[in-house]
């Protein structure tokens, strides 16, 4: 049985369904690229899968149970990083990482946090305010959450945006490692030439014409 199973899901904006109902199934070590033109509802779909929104149609099962009925389990095992990075601009990089994880109920010590920041290329910026970072650095700070804890399911909305070439290569290696470690990945990417070769499935959203 697949870990994640989506059956005929669809999202609504106002009175309209965004795309034709989609289904997919993901097992350990598998990944899904969601693609489609701008405005088709990729972000809405990801937010719904993550649990920020509700589906208007269909259901997503995690480990055989509807995620609406096992929310705690789903939230503990999944990590969503969207367009908004979730960084507080008045907190330092170190504080941002530590407080985000503490709110999620994850405890790490300062040394681990410093190592993580170094791993995402923010060494030397530990005590810089997040508001003063560049857009790419902010993205790196958000992506640091991927490296530090073992979430089973990664739900990433355009993670490559704003990253430089080295950053994209780094992220790609992190994603590969995650999949090799039997993790799951649901991703959207605007420039999907590189990621397309790595994912096991691709889902192209099609406009609902009704």
């Amino acid at each position, binding site marked *: 049985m697949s870990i994640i199973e989506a059956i005929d899901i669809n999202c609504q904006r106002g009175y309209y369904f965004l795309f034709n109902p989609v289904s997919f199934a993901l097992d350990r070590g598998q990944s899904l690229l969601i693609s489609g033109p701008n405005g088709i509802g990729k972000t809405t779909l990801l937010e719904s899968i*993550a649990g920020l929104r509700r589906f208007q149609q269909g259901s997503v099962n995690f480990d055989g149970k509807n995620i609406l009925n096992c929310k705690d389990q789903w939230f503990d095992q*999944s990590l969503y990083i969207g367009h*908004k990075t979730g960084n507080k601009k008045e907190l330092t990089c170190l*504080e941002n990482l530590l407080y985000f994880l503490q*709110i*999620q109920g994850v405890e790490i010590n300062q040394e681990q946090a410093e190592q993580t920041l170094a791993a995402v290329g923010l060494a030397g910026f530990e005590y810089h305010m997040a508001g003063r970072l560049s857009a790419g650095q902010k993205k790196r700070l958000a992506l640091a959450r991927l490296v530090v804890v073992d979430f089973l399911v990664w739900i990433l909305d355009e993670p490559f945006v704003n990253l430089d070439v080295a950053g994209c290569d780094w992220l790609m290696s992190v994603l590969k490692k995650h999949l090799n470690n039997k993790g799951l990945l649901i991703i959207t990417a605007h420039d999907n030439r590189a990621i397309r070769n790595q994912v096991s499935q691709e889902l192209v959203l099609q406009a609902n014409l009704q």
Partner: protein
Amino acid sequence: MKPFVALIKRDLILGLRKKSQIYQPLVFQLLVVTMFPLGLGSGAKTLAMIAPAVIWILALLASLLTLDQIFKNDYDDGSVESYVLTSFPLPLAVLAKVIAHWLLTGLPLVIFSPLIAVLLHLPSSSIAVLMFSLLIGTPIFSFMGSIGSALTMSLKHGGLLLTILVMPLLTPVLIFGASAVVESSLGNSASQPLLLLGGLLVMSFTLIPFASAAAIKINLE
């Protein structure tokens, strides 16, 4: 309970670094209160008579200045997701946010209230009752405000809408708070309005986190 403490600590650090959230209500209160003697111009007696109402209305208006901030900043930068997408119960997260907001904005109002009271010639015997009534009244502002803030967090300029939504809910607090101070300045016992205020606080504490949590979820849809 660790996420609860972490959320309070994070918000306190943010508030102390930004500061405007803390001193804005205080400066506003001080500025307005200095206008009253100038406008009324009729000596200590009139001021003392209107003092309870003025102090409580000022506390209400000063609180309204910062209420929209409770969830708006978190919504704008996306950090609201950090406590929505977790197994930690959302109502508890709301409670943490409200406590932090009160410590940053309500508590300073309580501490500075004797100064305002002196400027308005409130009898010194009533100052203890005033401080106590504000101590149990201002948290209700933060609680009620959290509903308004959760409902308006996705709006660009939700301040006025929030005021319209929240103001009617806050009138009982104003009525009981001000009447407690009036009673004590007349030499009567203030226990009845204070007990009613206490009841309102208990009700807010137990029910409003659930209402705000529901409002956050509606707004994220």
